[in-house]
Structures are given as structure tokens and as C-alpha cells.
């Protein structure tokens, strides 16, 4: 591929390494590297612009100004849609890299009325361009907005279905993503999704990119607390290998511990992989009645030797006899940072626990049934969409623009776009290196076994450095 150094807007491009147009003088460029990805940096180039006439020279300068002005307007004006880019590619690179152009300016280095430059229709200028601190890789030569790697997954379970994002993990910083989520089975109303990078997992230390996070912690695996028992037989409305739930009968009127569930109980071989910050969803329902039942989650280390010290989250009211997800709050595993790097090592993850307090605060009949707890990773890129009605034709879109502006919406068919669905996203970029994205979903206040969804993850690897391997 030929070497490229282009400034471009939607109208056209100017090459900065053209022999007959704008040429960067040897040694005259000083591309910068920013200290952080949110920074904006200014590159300067010493350029020699060669025209065929004075009018041609002026036209080239006007074209340069056009791109710089369009870039500045895109940066400052919310009504501007067309991005401007600086495209860079060295001769041996397979694909170009694009950095978002946000404005710039130039000045003459020599008096344009001096005889040598006037006679040769040459302008010597210093060009300064403002751009985002990184470049994006695009697989299309037309621009990064048309490119992006794509990872498609179909039939993902609504209970922690995941897509591996390994081969697409290029770049040297978190990648920009846009995700399209379609319904497969069930009219999904709410979707939670979070990245969990492989560097958190135990295998990473052995140089392997894999993860054994168990996103669903089945309640029946835990230690039963006060007036709590597992449902006796196969329970078709519950998840799990031998689907069961726990049932709290509330023979007491206290805020008692009903179940405690440790990482080792959930995944004995890989309790070490259950690490990160998570939003905990509780799949629960009442057996009958309209009593008021409240639950509050605690997290920390479980022990019977001393009184456990738990983080206690706010109470949540469980209502209705249909299973649905309740957002219980956020937890961190392991609670104590650095514990895995002590001489005791992974003992620090063995009894990381969720502890559920529950009380029937009014009434006398309702029992609480808890199927599982879902761990939605939130610390490496998290999003939530609600108010959807997903199907094969109706889908949600969430991600960010090249300028890191959050973007989301709901498409009802080919023409029915709406931006009115409530969305939330935090650090929603694909983590550096490789990882996995986990999905959790439910219908409107209803979680149904067998519901699935399809996802398409569009990934634009990003590079701090000017060169990359893509």
C-alpha cells in the first residue's frame, strides 16, 4: 500500500506528501503522543506547497483552510455530522489509521510577496493541526466510520450469554465499540452488558487468554440461612444444571440472613476468576400473595469464625409472582485490593461471598423465591438499555462516536428509529487486549427461561502510537 498522509473532509482530501501539491518538508513534522486518550494534541508540519500558478497556489491554500474550518466546526457545532480525518499509513502497513481532526491553522514561513516564492508559485508554511490523541484502524479505505471489525453472535442466553472478543483485540488502548442487539426469543425490554477482560483471569498469568467467570451464581449452591430451603424438585422456571431455586418461608419477622453464597461454592476450580466490580441482579419472585417483601444484599468475606464484615446495599422490594431481575447494587471481588498478591494468594478469593438479607415487612403469607444472582461486570465497560422491544427486526444500538460521544437508540424495523429509550453507559470501550462481553436481559418486568438475543459488536481498534499491526 502506498504511503499516505492525508487531511480529509467529506468533500475531498489533501495529501501532505504530494510532490506537486502540499509537501511536508523533510524533518519538518513533529507528530505528538498524548499522555492520555482524552487529550487533544497538536501536530505541526513544515510544508512546501507548490502550485502551477498563483491562483492554483491560492486554491490549494483555500482547500486546506476548508478542511481545517470544517474540522473546527465539527468539533464545536452539534449540528455538524461529517467528520474530518488525518489519515496516516506507512508504505509497509496493511491498513491506514485515522485520527479525528478537530481544527488547525497555518502561517507563512516566508513573505509570500518575496520574489523567489512568488516566481515559483511556492508557499512555505507551518501547519498546525489539532486532533484526538489516538488513531482508529479501519478496514475500509473509505474511512473508519465504514470500517470496524464485527463479531456476531446469535442465540445468546439472556442469563449471562457471552461473546469472546479475542481476535479483534488489536490496538494499544481500549477500542471504540458500537453494539447492535436484536431479539431472538422473547420481546426483550431491558439489556445489561459488560466487558470482562481476560487479564483479570487466573490464566492470564500463564500467558493464556481465557476466562472462567461464572456470571450466574445459582442460589441453590449456597449455604441456606434462616427459614430457607431449596426447592425440592426440578424447577422449570429456574436456571441451572439441575434447575432449582431457594425459598424463604419467613417464619420470622426479622431482617435475617437467608442465604450466603461463596465464589468457591459457585466455581470451585476457578474461584480466582470471579473478580472485578459487578452490578448484582437478583432473579426472584414471590410464591403468592401481595405482601411486602424486601431483600438487601451484602458482600464481603464469609466466615463463621468471627463476625463477617459486609458491605450492605440498600433494600429492594420484590413484588409479583413472576421471576424478574432486581438490581441489588454493586460489589467488588475480592473486596481487599492486593490480596491476591500476598503470600496466601488465591485464598483471598475462596470465600468471597454474597449474603442475602430478607424480611417480609408486611403481610403473613408471601414467600420469597430466589433463582440466582447475575454478575454484570461494570468496571471495564458497561451499558444498560431499557424500554426496548427487541425482535429479529427491532434492535437496539449503543456505543460511541469517534469523538467519544455516547450514542444509543432503538430501531423498530428499517424506518422506525427512536432515541427515546433510556440508556446508560460507563467506560463503554472494549478493554485493551482481549476479553468477553456478557449479556443479561429480560422482558418488561418478566424474566423467562429460554429467552435469547443476538448481538453484533463493531470494534474500532485504537492506537496511541502512529503505527499498528492491523
Amino acid at each position, binding site marked *: 500500500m502506498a504511503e499516505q498522509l492525508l487531511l480529509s473532509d467529506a468533500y475531498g482530501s489533501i495529501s501532505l506528501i504530494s510532490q506537486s501539491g502540499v509537501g511536508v518538508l523533510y524533518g519538518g513534522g513533529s507528530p505528538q503522543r498524548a499522555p492520555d486518550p482524552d487529550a487533544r494534541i497538536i501536530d505541526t508540519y513544515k510544508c512546501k506547497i507548490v502550485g502551477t500558478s498563483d491562483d492554483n497556489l491560492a486554491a490549494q491554500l483555500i482547500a486546506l483552510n476548508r478542511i481545517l474550518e470544517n474540522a473546527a466546526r465539527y468539533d464545536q457545532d452539534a449540528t455538524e455530522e461529517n467528520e474530518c480525518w488525518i489519515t496516516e499509513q506507512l508504505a509497509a502497513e496493511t491498513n491506514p489509521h485515522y485520527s479525528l481532526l478537530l481544527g488547525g491553522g497555518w502561517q507563512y514561513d516566508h513573505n509570500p510577496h518575496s520574489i523567489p516564492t512568488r516566481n515559483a508559485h511556492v508557499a512555505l508554511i507551518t501547519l498546525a493541526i489539532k486532533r484526538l490523541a489516538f488513531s482508529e484502524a479501519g478496514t475500509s479505505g473509505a474511512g473508519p466510520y465504514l470500517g470496524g471489525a464485527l463479531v456476531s453472535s446469535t442465540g445468546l442466553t439472556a442469563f449471562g450469554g457471552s461473546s469472546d472478543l479475542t481476535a479483534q483485540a488489536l490496538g494499544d488502548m481500549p477500542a471504540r465499540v458500537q453494539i447492535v442487539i436484536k431479539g431472538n426469543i422473547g420481546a426483550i425490554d431491558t439489556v445489561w452488558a459488560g466487558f470482562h477482560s481476560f487479564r483479570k483471569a487466573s490464566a492470564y498469568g500463564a500467558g493464556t487468554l481465557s476466562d472462567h467467570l461464572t456470571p450466574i451464581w445459582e442460589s441453590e449452591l449456597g449455604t441456606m440461612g434462616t427459614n430457607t430451603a431449596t426447592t425440592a424438585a426440578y424447577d422449570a422456571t429456574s436456571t441451572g444444571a439441575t434447575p432449582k431455586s431457594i425459598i424463604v418461608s419467613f417464619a420470622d419477622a426479622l431482617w435475617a440472613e437467608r442465604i450466603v453464597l461463596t465464589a468457591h461454592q459457585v466455581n470451585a476450580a476457578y474461584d480466582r476468576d470471579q473478580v472485578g466490580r459487578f452490578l448484582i441482579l437478583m432473579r426472584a419472585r414471590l410464591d403468592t400473595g401481595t405482601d411486602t417483601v424486601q431483600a438487601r444484599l451484602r458482600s464481603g468475606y464469609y466466615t463463621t469464625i468471627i463476625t463477617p*464484615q459486609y458491605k450492605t446495599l440498600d433494600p429492594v422490594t420484590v413484588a409479583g409472582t413472576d421471576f424478574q431481575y432486581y438490581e441489588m447494587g454493586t460489589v467488588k471481588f475480592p473486596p*481487599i*485490593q492486593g490480596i491476591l498478591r500476598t503470600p496466601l494468594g488465591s485464598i483471598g478469593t475462596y470465600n468471597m461471598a454474597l449474603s442475602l438479607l430478607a424480611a417480609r415487612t408486611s403481610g403473613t403469607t408471601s414467600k420469597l423465591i430466589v433463582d440466582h444472582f447475575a454478575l*454484570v461486570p461494570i468496571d471495564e465497560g458497561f451499558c444498560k438499555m431499557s424500554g426496548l422491544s427487541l425482535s429479529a427486526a427491532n434492535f437496539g444500538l449503543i456505543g460511541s462516536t469517534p469523538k467519544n460521544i455516547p450514542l444509543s437508540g432503538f430501531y423498530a424495523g428499517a424506518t422506525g428509529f427512536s*432515541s427515546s429509550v*433510556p440508556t446508560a453507559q460507563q467506560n463503554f470501550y472494549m478493554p485493551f487486549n482481549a476479553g468477553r462481553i456478557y449479556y443479561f436481559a429480560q422482558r418488561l418486568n418478566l424474566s423467562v427461561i429460554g429467552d435469547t438475543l443476538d448481538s453484533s459488536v463493531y470494534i474500532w481498534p485504537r492506537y496511541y502510537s502512529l503505527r499498528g499491526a492491523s
Partner: protein
Amino acid sequence: MDYNIGLYNNLKVSTQFIGDITGMCPDYQDNTRAMGGYWTGAFTLQGLPLTELEEWYNYHLGYRVVRQVGGQTKWEGFISQMRLVSGGQTYIRDLNTMVNRALVYYRDVTGGVTTPTAWNTNALSLANYGQRDDTYTLDGVAAAVATDYRDTQLTRYGWPKSVAAGGTLFAGGDVKIPPILYVQLSGYVFTLNWRLVVSAIAATANLSAFITTLIGESEFVTAGTITSNTRQVPQKFLSAMRSWDAIEKLANIGDSAGNRYVVQVGANRKMDYKLAATAVGYDIANGKLYELDGSECIPGEIVPDRIARRRDAPTGFWQGDVYSNPRNAYLSEVQFKAPGVVTLMPDRWNVNEQLLALLQYNQAARAGEVVEHFRGK
């Protein structure tokens, strides 16, 4: 960012999500109080074209703003005031000065009994922003004059119209001041004071039941978890009271056992009435704020009505209740500032706590330093 800020339509119009504005307001801040819940907030919009700021100024008053962590609401309120600085002039739109339902108490020239006029409303304002009551008094006038006065006030204050409020019209030289929009947020607890208490039942009832009744008179706030308090109170007040003032007074009564209570408007405009925290909820150690399980707190999740325990505080001899423990600071207010600075404000009621520090916890810098300033009041 470890949080996101969503903009929603005015609740009187719809619950529509407008967009994620996290990146637009890097100086966002909000306060939450143990007594009151989601309290106030603010952010500034600048670096945007004037047309964009005017769009906000003209159409976004009353819009709902929600801050979330992990998709869970941690603060919710509405745009209650905007100040646009443009062309050397400041313009203000303010819901706090709006009056769209009014009456006048008057006495005629004979000096007879004080009589209220009927209520009148500015219907368009009421439909767009919600009901905000006020009353006026006039002495020595006829009924017709009183109603004239009432209707004049409704015309004058009924719509939160833009008001020019000073500025520098003739700045020195040709200095061009870029336009700025200052956005002030109020928690929905403030809308409780938009209305006067209606309940006028002399019979006594459980204090908690009366609070439920008062919440039921609100336009935007509904009852959440209401803890039973059997202390008996009449379901009326001797003088006109605004709803939040009334609820706060009732909550401050406590109960027959001397317990403290708080009322808080939280997520989805639900108001909870509950016992104030009596157990330690946070630890302060090594210059950081921790959950009790040992994990570092996420700044955007830190809430008041928690007791923060300084593990390494000198105690000496002390006596009293849990709030008097020199190690403990009952957090009466927490301020969150983007991207992750939290200011913890200890209880103002306790004499000892008045000399305790403001605690600033700076997660953004990852320094996690707890900086202590003497409160001095």
C-alpha cells in the same frame, strides 16, 4: 467515567430519554442529604455554540436529570433554574419564583374577618411545569380587588419566563465573552414545597400515616418505604405549611423511644421514612473511605445517613450514644463532584461534630486522600 448522566424530558410532558450528557458537563455536581434525599445539583455548559445553549435555555427548564452508577440511579432531579450569559448580559429562567396557583386573603374596608378568595391558576404553566402555590394578603379591599390582585400575580409570575438580570453591556475594548449556561438542579423533594398542606383533619393518627398522607398530596413524589411510627399527631397544622416543611418537622419529632428518623426522596421520586442509621456503614483508614467489606468506595455511590468510622481516631474517654463516639461521624450530606470527588459533611446537630472535619475523598486522582478541613461552624 464511572458514572453517567442522562437527560430526560420534563415529567409533565413525558418520561422520554433525551440523551447522555455525561461528556457535556465535566463540572457536574450534586448533593444528597440524610434529611431530604436528593437535594441540589449544578453544571455548566460552555464551549458550545450560542444556538445550542439557547435551545437548552428555551426548552429544557424542568427537564429531568439522572446520575447513575452501574445503571442504578444515584441522583435524580430537575432543571430548576438556568442562567444564560450571552452578549454581556445575564438572562434567568427560574422555576423557584414561578407561581401558577394563587389566592388572596383579604379583609374589606369594614375590617371584618379575613376571607380567602377562590384559587385561580395559570393553566398553561400548570400543565407544563406542575403546580406551584402561593398566597397573598391584602387589607382594606373589596373582594373584586383581591381577585384582581390575585390574577395580576398569576400573570406576572405564572410562567417562568426569561428575565434579563444585569451584566456588562459595554465591556472594555472588543472583548468577546463566550456564551455560558449555568444550570441549577433541584431534587424532587423541592416540589413538595410547591404545594401547601391540604390535610385539615383534627383527629390524630400515626405520625407515619400522616407523612404518607402528605406525600400523597405531592404531584411528583410518591411514598416508598414508610416505617411505622405510632406516635399520635393531629393531621393538620395550625398555620399554613408547605409540604416538605411539614414532613421534615414531623420526621424531626422522632418517636417515643427517642429514635432519630430521616425522610429521603430517592430514585424514581420515591420518598422513604425510616430510622436514621445507628450502625457503622463506612470506614475511614489510611486516608481512604472503605466499605465495611474492605473494598474502596466508588465515589458516585457514597451516600449520607451512614456512620463513617475513623479507625485511627484518638478517642480518650467519652460517653453518649453512637453519634457521640469520637470515632464516628454521622454523614448528614454528601456532595459528588465529577469526575469523582466526594465531600462528606458530618452531622450538624451534634456539638462535637461541629468541630469535625469535612472529608474530601478524591477518587479521581487515585490518591484517595482524605483531607480534613475544620468546619468552623
